[in-house]
């Protein structure tokens, strides 16, 4: 039995499952003191209810805890393999649609892997746990359909490397649907790994209708899983090269910084790293 999660960070929410227990314990501590005369009946009632009622109460508490845990696990989008996964039919083919756009190189924090690296490792882990189904890769940079011999090879493939291109999600999905339609690979899932950039997804594009009807017209039902990376940035700063000119030994660049969201009046310090390539030595 193996299980992996597409949104592993949500698993931190499992701590919330302890909330019913904490509330129960707090309630037990917050009792009122009252003078009482009929203590005999109270003692008798406490003795009699100790077993059955307490068990019932504990069961209710466990159910509440499990309900919260189940909700969080469901939100974390589990992928079941082995015995548990067999119940839903084994997946024969996984088509990984990989967004290789520049924005996928965003690192949520310094030292952490980029969204692209994280999602590749997530896919690798999930596919391993699912018993290594057939893995087909469609990357956004080349748009080629490529069969990956082993999940281990996924990080090594040049078609999973970083690019400074933009992705076209409707086109990639169309390709995936066409591939399924042509090859009829059986039980198939499409895993769409993207950082949900509007420019990549093009939500107003008319091809989305074709994607929807394409999925519906497929002979076998497929599952489309979106492996969304990243989150809504608190502040978004974009840099754009407007023009460049060289005057003697100096290179002048006209850059435009666009800032969205955040407090418009606040001063923001945003260091812009640059890399200088050395001039290749001229051959003598």
């Amino acid at each position, binding site marked *: 039995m193996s299980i992996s999660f597409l949104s592993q960070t949500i698993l931190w929410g499992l701590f919330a499952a302890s909330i019913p227990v904490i509330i129960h314990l707090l309630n037990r501590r917050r009792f009122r003191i*009252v003078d009482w*005369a009929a203590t005999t009946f*109270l003692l008798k009632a406490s003795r009699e209810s100790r077993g059955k009622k307490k068990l019932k109460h504990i069961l209710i508490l466990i159910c509440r805890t499990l309900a919260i845990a189940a909700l969080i696990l469901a939100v974390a989008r589990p992928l079941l393999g082995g015995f548990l996964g067999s119940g839903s039919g084994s997946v024969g083919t996984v088509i990984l649609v990989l967004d290789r756009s520049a924005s996928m190189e965003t690192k949520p924090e310094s030292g952490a892997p980029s969204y692209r690296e994280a999602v590749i490792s997530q896919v690798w882990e999930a596919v391993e746990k699912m018993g290594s189904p057939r893995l087909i890769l469609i990357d956004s940079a080349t748009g080629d359909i490529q069969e990956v011999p082993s999940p281990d090879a996924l990080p090594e493939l040049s078609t999973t490397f970083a690019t400074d291109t933009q992705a076209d999600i409707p086109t990639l999905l169309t390709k995936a649907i066409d591939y399924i339609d042509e090859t009829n690979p059986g039980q198939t899932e499409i895993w769409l790994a993207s950082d949900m950039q509007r420019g990549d997804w093009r939500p107003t594009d008319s091809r989305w209708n074709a994607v929807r009807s394409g999925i519906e017209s497929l002979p076998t039902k497929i599952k489309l899983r979106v492996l969304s990376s990243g989150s809504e940035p608190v502040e978004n700063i974009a840099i754009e090269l407007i023009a460049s000119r060289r005057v003697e030994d100096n290179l002048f660049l006209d850059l435009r910084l666009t800032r969205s969201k955040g407090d418009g009046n606040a001063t923001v310090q945003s260091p812009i790293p640059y890399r200088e390539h050395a001039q290749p030595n001229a051959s003598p």
Partner: protein
Amino acid sequence: MKYDFLDTEVLARLGAIPLESRTPMIGNVAGRHRSPHRGSSVEFAEYRKYVPGDDTRRLDWKAYARSDRFYIKEFEADTNLRAYFVVDSSGSMNFSSGDHPTKIDFARKVAATLSYLIVNQGDSAGLSCCNDKIHLEIPPSRRAAQLQAIFDSLQNLEPTGDTGLVDALHQIAEKIQQRALVIILSDLFCETEELGDALQHLRFRKHDIAVFHLLDPQEVEFHFERPHRFVDLEDSTTVIAEPNLIADEYHAALREFLEKVEGKCHDVHADYHLFQTSANYEEIVSNFITTRLNSKR
């Protein structure tokens, strides 16, 4: 009036109804209550055959003329009533929830009102107060000054200590030599079997028993929202409980207790009255007096 447990209007309204004994009483003076002995009242009781030694003045000559036999004509004897109030003054009687009076306050009202009515109709009233033992005794008397003694004692009554009602009833049963009306005012939080024995003891001594069983509405309803630490009023025992969880068992235990107590009271033909302290005491006293009028044995 300096006693806040007495209401003159209530006394005036209830004063019109006589308080009767259900069983023949043995008093020391003539009164309005039936006696087991034959006497000289105007109410005919029975004829009995003359036996040597009988007073010949009591022979019924008309009966002799009709039957040629000697008969003695007997009449009922009327005597006075002795009422003993037994007030439980243990710590549990000091319980009250919300705006209701404490059980001891309610007992004060009932005892004071009834003793006033009893003395006022020429009968004797006495008072015994007990917690773990009998700590106050006022022998019955029909003097007007007796009322002040009873009222003062009720006024100064401080409920403390454990319930020793059973022992107190045994002692009272032994102490009262002649038939009397014993009125018990208590929450009866004691062993029901032992209470039954004590009532049997009173009954064996041919006393007329009346039981006023006082409970607070909260003790009956047992309605609490949150967990509570219950501190016993008598021995400060602490019970931490979640009332929501044990309410059913509590009600079952209370029901069982009330059924047992009522059963024990019926066994000895006691006049049992269960009521809550939220009730109107005038109605209770009035009901007590009127039902006795119809249940004379």
